[in-house]
């Protein structure tokens, strides 16, 4: 062997060793919200424990993230090793074989500690395909001072009739106080999510067991008429443009008597740094109509691993850390118990320190427990999901239906016309997709 050959072989071996010693990089796609940003700030705890793993973050707005990760996973682009996805994507993607099953998480992870309804929402055929980072349902947030002044006493579990009475009593339009704030902005994750959850409690459903759209049912007529009446009589002006953020701003400025929306909002409206009404907020379960279903939804931002990633083991280590009990303790240590990601683990709701710090904890837990994504409606349905239908076509149909709802709220068409248009367009899409022959 010549000296040159020996030198070349040596260099090759060194390169190989260097490559082996190089840290593995995980690219994590995530959304911009307080809990996720906090995790990025605390990620040094993970990299200190695992110096062989580096983390690269791609933070995007929710809709951009959804488009981005869907394109990547559907084409097996392989740009991400960990994806932040919701309860809508998980069952669809798992059935396509796009996600790695997470049945082999270490024992100390204590998978049985995950809240049953959340775990159920992230499982397909008994296998877990994503682990929850934070979970949410929806509930009623109300102004205790306005309720007292109006002589209204909120029960823990109100009915829609009570909500109508309370909204009427708390409305004071002259002083820009509106009895109730609800989502009106068009979008499958905005007004469609809210109205679908509300309609579930009226006995309505999107489809019957043969995938026939049901917007022409009496239950839908009643639910949607009540929604429009509440918005028009007691809601904020321009409600057709109001989504989560717009209503949050209104509530924080003291302009809503009640707000029915995501449980995650509780920490915002009770934060004295941002909210002018932080010390006078009460909570109640989402309303019902005595039919056995409440108008609350279930959502969990979760971490999933795309099938085909070349860093599967490192990705599993990371998702287990980010959703562990130890991570909750790390957040509590650095930012206080009130800032621990809510709605994922039973143990959190048994922790007196958390219950003391978060006045909304009990109601959040009760709301999540009341949600059943496998049986979301009074009558049986062929789909899972409460505020959505877990089929790939739903994003498009849900947004188109939301546009009809928003048009009715804006006064551009009647409730009957909007529901008829929703029925027609859903029928057309379901026929085109082959659900209906």
């Amino acid at each position, binding site marked *: 062997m010549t000296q040159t050959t020996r030198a070349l072989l040596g260099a090759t071996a060194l390169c190989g060793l260097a490559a082996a010693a190089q840290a593995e990089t995980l690219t994590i796609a995530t959304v911009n919200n307080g809990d996720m940003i906090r995790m990025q700030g605390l990620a040094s705890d993970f990299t200190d424990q695992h110096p062989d793993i580096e983390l690269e973050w791609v933070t995007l707005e929710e809709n951009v993230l959804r488009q981005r990760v869907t394109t990547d996973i559907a*084409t097996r682009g392989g740009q991400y090793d960990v994806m932040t996805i919701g309860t809508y994507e998980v069952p669809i993607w798992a059935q396509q074989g796009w996600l790695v099953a997470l049945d082999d998480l270490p024992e100390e992870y204590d998978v049985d500690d995950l809240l049953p309804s959340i775990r159920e929402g992230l499982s397909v055929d008994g296998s877990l395909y994503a682990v929850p980072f934070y979970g949410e349902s929806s509930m009623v947030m109300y102004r205790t001072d306005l309720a007292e002044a109006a002589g209204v006493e909120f029960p823990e579990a109100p009915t829609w009739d009570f909500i109508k009475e309370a909204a009427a009593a708390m409305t004071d339009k002259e002083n820009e106080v509106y009895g109730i704030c609800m989502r009106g902005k068009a979008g499958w994750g905005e007004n469609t999510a809210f109205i679908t959850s509300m309609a579930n409690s009226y006995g309505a459903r999107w489809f019957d067991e043969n995938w026939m759209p049901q917007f022409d049912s009496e239950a839908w007529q009643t639910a949607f008429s009540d929604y429009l009446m509440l918005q028009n009589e007691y809601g904020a002006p321009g409600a057709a443009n109001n989504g989560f*953020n717009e209503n949050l701003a209104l509530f*924080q400025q003291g302009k809503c008597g009640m707000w029915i929306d995501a449980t995650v909002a509780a920490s915002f409206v009770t934060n004295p740094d941002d909210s002018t009404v932080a010390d006078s907020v009460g909570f109640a379960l989402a309303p019902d109509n005595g039919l056995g279903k409440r108008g609350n939804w279930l959502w969990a931002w979760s971490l999933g691993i795309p099938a085909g990633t070349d860093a599967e083991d490192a990705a599993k280590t990371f998702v287990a850390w980010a959703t562990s009990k130890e991570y909750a303790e790390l957040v509590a240590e650095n930012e206080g118990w009130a800032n621990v990601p809510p709605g994922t683990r039973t143990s959190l709701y048994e922790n007196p320190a958390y219950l003391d710090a978060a006045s909304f904890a009990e109601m959040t837990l009760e709301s999540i427990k009341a949600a059943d994504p496998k049986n979301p409606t009074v009558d049986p349905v062929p789909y899972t999901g409460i505020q959505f239908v877990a089929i790939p076509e739903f994003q498009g149909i849900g947004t188109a239906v939301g546009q009809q709802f928003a048009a009715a709220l804006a006064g551009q068409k009647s409730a009957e016309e909007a529901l008829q248009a929703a029925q027609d367009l859903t029928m057309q899409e379901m026929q085109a997709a082959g659900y209906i022959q």
Partner: protein
Amino acid sequence: MARAVSTRRKIGFTIAAWAVGLAIFFPILWTILTSFKTEAEAISSPPSFLFFDWTLENYTTVQERSNYFRHFWNSVVISLGSTLLGLLIAIPAAWSMAFVPGKRTKDVLMWMLSTKMLPPVGVLIPIYLIFRDVGLLDTKTGLVIVLTLINLPIIVWMLYTYFKEIPGEILEAARMDGASLRNEIIHVLTPMAVPGIASTLLLNVILAWNEAFWTLNLTAAKSAPLTAFIASYSSPEGLFYAKLSAASTMAIAPILILGWFSQKQLVRGLTFGAVK
């Protein structure tokens, strides 16, 4: 009397022009002002215009959370790279169409323009698959190529319009003096079309800088430009308008400054040949 009417009209036009200018600039001004407010002030109603507690807190947070300079550098490379590559292709193309037009030149120009009428999402998946297969996903090279192709019709059209204004006799004279085609384009045509080329360059840099669809869809962590930086501060669940405004101000500041300093050149180029 005529002079009085003319002066009054002039004042009227001036006021109208200022009003239109301010209306166009107002959203940018509002974004800049919001970036100096707290999150609570950013959503206060009625909104405060100038009288609020000015703070730099949002800029500090944005700096701490994101690697601004990496995004900035990616934007610079992508916008300048795609513009220069585009000019390299478009100058000879526009020369041939302006000075040696064929029977179908107009059709070719129209066809080029028609490619801009296709919604980009219509070709997202094929381009994504090609990029995946050739390893161009999340690379600056990939974005330079795609932005060049996207803006090429506009560059060719603009240059074609400018070149048409240059008398062909000058180029003929250069040819008579023995100039080669290369020399004719580089030493005769290009210097005469400098205002047009400069404004095309500036406009294309601005278009590439602001392009959001492809830069968001074809990048992940390594080559994401400032558009991705802004997108990372938008949140549907949480009021982060002040931070979003700070990120937006930081993203648009470089291009705003460039536009401000080069406005004379830009206007001169855009109105080149408009009045004969």
